[in-house]
């Protein structure tokens, strides 16, 4: 992959010769004749590393892990609400692994690798590469190690390469999260020979090398990467991980201004604008293909903090839940994109999550609860929002401020700079009343509960603790979903948190993608663009 500047320049021009001469005239050409093997994507996010395992790697960089590297397994595909396709959590498909078996006690996972899988340099992908890559993910610390732990992978001695094509994982306890956790972007398979050749004593995991050079077996190689500007993907024609992608080249260009991104996709100079604002999505939906997929396992919430006196009062929390102008918020902050999470049935009959709460806007009911509470005369509280997320938090906060004013709660909106927000809301958990969002990668309700409702866990920014929830979450987290005890336990968990309201659900946000001349878009839980299924139209 590492070429001198001169040759990479020449190769690039050569491989792009056909389309380069065509592209300037795209606008004047019939749709069918457009360079059908190249696609341009614009996004507002910065790819700052090619290595997801490195600390400081931005979310946008996860797409490299997805598009350039293979995992042992992947998720299936289904049609999505809001158009296009979505990953299917219930189906596990092979990627590098040809097949796998789980021992009867659920503690030993044995994977057979595809015999014809090769890295980009032509070398065969072996179980030793898998072991090295997994060792790396659990050893480097930080986010990758945390994510690996979710599946029960904590130490290198759990992984073993039996022979070139057989890889074994030994678990400490059986868990339904183990195999799905192998399909998230973290446990990807690196060319260990190439990486080791560039590792040093100070840097045994080749973090410096893989930061700027991708070394995988995935569907796309990195042809060029200019941080802060663009990343050019080039198809790997020897890929065996899945169906061969239709596009030869995909250019992901960074354009910070949403207005500019919108103009580009409307003109058709770029084929996909990724992660556009809800407002643009609502407006563009009339003329372009806009996919607005509700983000799985994710809720936007209003969180009253249990460490603060007024919010220890259950009636105050219920008053909040009845005072919130849900529909107005959904229209003003989300332009109707996503899924409402209010006005549901009180009785819980299924285990779908996120689910609609039983609350709805009713100021009279809210006043009744306030009168019953220990704060009949009302109180004053700051409502904190993040400056990084003002697009939805600001209109939401303003509407909540107005509504709470009607039930005697004086709200002052406090804006916190993005760099400080995580520390204040999640790490120190010191915000009395705030807006919050969390989406779990592993799409089971108990995984959401683990992060957001268990005491001391990162996204439990309300300092909530309920003994029954602690117990039920621990019991269900690794329990198979077909266990007869699973559904009743979950229903009980839903019942408790929707009654106690440490997080008042507002709505489920959507990830918006506008396409003009592209098809095959597929939504993924990691909220990055999977370019493999894309096609030109």
């Amino acid at each position, binding site marked *: 992959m590492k070429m001198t500047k001169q040759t990479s320049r020449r190769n690039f*021009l050569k491989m792009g010769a056909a389309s380069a001469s065509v592209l300037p005239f795209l606008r004047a050409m019939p749709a069918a004749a457009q360079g059908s093997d190249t696609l341009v994507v614009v996004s507002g996010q910065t790819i700052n590393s090619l290595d997801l395992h490195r600390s400081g790697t931005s979310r946008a960089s996860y797409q490299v892990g997805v598009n350039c590297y293979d995992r042992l397994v992947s998720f299936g595909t289904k049609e999505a609400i809001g158009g296009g396709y979505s990953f299917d959590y219930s189906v596990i498909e092979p990627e590098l692994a040809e097949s796998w078996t789980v021992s009867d006690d659920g503690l030993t996972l044995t994977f057979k690798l595809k015999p014809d899988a090769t890295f980009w340099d032509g070398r065969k992908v072996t179980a030793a590469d898998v072991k090295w890559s997994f060792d790396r993910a659990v050893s480097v*610390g930080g986010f990758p190690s945390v994510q690996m732990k979710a599946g029960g992978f904590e130490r290198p001695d759990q992984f073993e390469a039996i022979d070139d094509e057989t890889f074994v994982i030994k678990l400490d306890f059986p868990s339904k999260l183990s195999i799905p956790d192998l399909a998230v972007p973290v446990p990807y398979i690196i060319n260990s020979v190439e990486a080791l050749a560039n590792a040093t004593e100070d840097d045994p995991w080749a973090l410096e090398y893989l930061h700027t050079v991708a070394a995988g077996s995935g569907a796309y190689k990195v042809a060029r990467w200019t941080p802060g500007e663009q990343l050019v993907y080039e198809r790997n024609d020897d890929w065996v991980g899945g169906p061969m992608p239709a596009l030869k080249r995909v250019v992901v260009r960074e*354009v910070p201004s949403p*207005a500019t991104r919108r*103009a*580009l996709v409307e003109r058709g100079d770029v084929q996909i604008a990724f992660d556009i604002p809800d407002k643009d999505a609502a407006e563009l939906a009339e003329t372009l293909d806009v996919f607005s997929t509700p983000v799985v396992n994710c809720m936007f919430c209003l969180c009253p903090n249990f460490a603060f006196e007024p919010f220890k009062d259950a009636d105050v929390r219920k008053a909040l839940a009845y005072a919130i102008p849900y529909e107005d918020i959904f229209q003003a902050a989300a332009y109707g994109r996503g899924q409402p999470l209010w006005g549901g049935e009180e009785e819980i009959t299924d285990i779908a999550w996120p689910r609609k709460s039983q609350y709805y806007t009713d100021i009279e009911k809210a006043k009744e609860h306030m009168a019953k509470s220990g704060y009949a005369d009302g109180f004053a509280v700051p409502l904190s929002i993040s400056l*990084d997320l003002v697009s939805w938090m600001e209109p939401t906060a303003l509407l909540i401020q107005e509504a709470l004013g009607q039930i005697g709660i004086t709200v002052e909106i406090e804006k916190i700079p993005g*760099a400080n927000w995580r520390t204040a809301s999640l790490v120190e958990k010191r915000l009395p009343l705030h807006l919050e969002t969390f989406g779990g990668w592993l799409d089971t309700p108990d995984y959401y509960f683990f992060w957001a409702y268990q005491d001391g866990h990162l996204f439990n920014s309300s300092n909530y603790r309920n003994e029954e929830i602690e117990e039920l979450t621990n019991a269900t987290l690794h329990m198979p979903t077909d266990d007869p005890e699973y559904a009743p336990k979950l229903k009980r968990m839903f019942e408790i948190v929707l009654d106690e309201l440490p997080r008042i659900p507002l709505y489920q946000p959507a990830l918006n993608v506008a396409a003009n001349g592209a098809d095959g878009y597929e939504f993924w839980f990691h909220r990055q663009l999977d370019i493999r299924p894309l096609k030109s139209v």
Partner: protein
Amino acid sequence: MLASTPRLRAILLRVAQSVPVVVGVVVISFLLTRALPGDPAVYFAGVTADAESIEQTRVAMGLDKPLMQQFFIYVGDLLQGDLGQSLSSGRSVAEDLAKRLPASLELTLTALILAIVIAVPLGVLAATRPGTWVDHLCRVIVTAGVSLPTFFTGILLIYIFYYLLGIAPSPLGRLDFIYLDPDHVTGFYLIDAALMGDWETWRGAAKQLILPASTLALFTLAPIARMTRAAMLTALSSDFIRTARAAGLSNRTVLYRYAFRNALLPVVTTLGMVFSFALGANVLVEKVFAWPGIGSYAVEALVVSDYAAVQGFVLAMALLFVALNLVIDLLYTAIDPRIGFSSK
């Protein structure tokens, strides 16, 4: 030898004078970045980091060490020309700056040249024909230039010339994706492409420059035109111009050799000022046009408390302004020989 070149000595003296400024900037930028809100370790540890991994990140970033020690490590690296590693871009700050500073400078200088080419003649014309339509035009442009925010002008220009008329290229940064960057020599695409003889890339780069440079030029035009007009009016009403006219010198000679040259001094001072706030206004223009310059880099770094990047940016800017002031001082003496260094 030195005595015979007082100007050289004076220049060296001025450069020496800027050393304490730079030292001051190093100290202040270090302290200020530490005073930024937010904990970089939390930010860089990632989305689902727990207390343990945040601590690991803190140690890896050297943020667990006392402030004094961090400062000495920073200065030690700085002396070796190492500006540190930017965490958000993942590259060395020196590398980032080398890549991004020319982008901003190319844009700013093009805009500035464009502004001068329009504003100076406009100011001269307005001053020589007060009260006529040229004067009014000058006033309208000046008012428009100062009152329109750059991001608005930028989006408006994109809307008209790219979206509606389709004559401007896609606002996709310095080069459309079908071109490749020219080999790095100066970092200025126009110069580098010309050096390579790659005229197609040169045209590509020039086309991309037009809209953002016009946006910035519109913004910087106003003070230059206003200052030219005022300085010309002052010069034209001076005694020496009356004398020159009385001596029967041609109108042209009076205007350009005597009046204009005298009016240049305040204009050059204004240019220095305009250059500095054009670099500031760049931030918004860069965002709108996806320009990979230093403004967007600095803002991004500030948002995530990326210490090394912010410090590197402040330092680079300080050096740039020290150099700029030096150049302006030297220009003074070239324009007006009465301002000599020897008298200082």
